[in-house]
């Protein structure tokens, strides 16, 4: 129960962080392209995170993690760049009211891939599907009728 609460608390903080980002970035993207803005944001984020790693003592084991896990995290970083690049490109070509709702279907892809690759490690139930579809429908309503 406590473990589940912790997970929810972490997810809520993550959602808040991701949700706050466009509000802050919007004010900083007046003079430059989103790609440049994203790069500046990542550079600052990485710098601050590096300081956190140094202070918290995590740096002692830096680059001593299993090589396979490090590769997965590196690929996830490159993957995130590709996602953002396509997202910016789509926004450049069309309106957010089309791009954001279509891109928001990504949890369905995660669920599908989880069933294939993480079958023994993940819990799937009807609540997950219903909740995911409600969130996607909600995003469609917010962005199309805003």
């Amino acid at each position, binding site marked *: 129960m406590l473990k*589940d609460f912790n997970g929810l608390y*972490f*997810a809520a903080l*993550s*959602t808040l*962080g*991701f949700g706050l*980002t466009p*509000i*802050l*970035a919007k004010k900083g993207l*007046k003079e430059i392209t989103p*790609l*440049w803005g*994203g*790069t*500046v*944001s990542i*550079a*600052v*984020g990485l710098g*601050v*995170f*590096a300081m956190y790693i140094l202070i918290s003592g995590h740096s002692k084991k830096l680059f001593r993690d299993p090589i*396979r*896990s*490090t590769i997965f*995290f590196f690929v*996830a*970083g490159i*993957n*995130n760049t590709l*996602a*953002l690049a*396509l*997202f910016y490109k789509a926004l450049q070509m*069309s309106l957010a009211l089309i*791009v954001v709702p279509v*891109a*928001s279907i*990504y*949890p*369905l*892809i*995660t669920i599908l*891939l*989880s069933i294939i690759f*993480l079958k023994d*490690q993940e819990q799937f139930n009807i*609540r997950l599907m219903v909740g*995911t579809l409600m*969130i*996607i*429908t*909600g*995003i469609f*309503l*917010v*962005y199309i*009728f805003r």
Partner: protein
Amino acid sequence: MDNHLNITLFFSLGTALFFGINPILIKKGLKIGGDQTRGTFYLLCAHLLSMFLLLILFDSSDQGAWQLGNEEIIWLSMAGISNFVLAFNYYFKSIAVMGAARTASIVNANPGVSVILAVLLLGENINSTAWLGIFLILVGAYIIGRR
């Protein structure tokens, strides 16, 4: 459907595909002994390096970071801390505890959070249908998060 819309949909679906793959990669990395905090750091390193590469290869505009004023730098820095320190760090922790699928679904509520914050902080107006959408997003996140 016109060609322009087709290309937009292609890019948007591509975005969904790459974002959809990410929690799986993170979960796999954590499962084989990766650390959440250092994992976030490795991801950010690869993210920054690949963004630089993209800039070198594809950005031909003359609107570079050197044109930024102090105020823009502060806003972008705060966005970077919010997205890459707060959000990604807890994203890893959440995937470790709750799993990739549940985390991806709950974190997908973030456009709803953005709209609520835009109303509260920027004074933007939204109509009743959009409020219904926000209600659905919050209830959906609650349903997934409930044990």
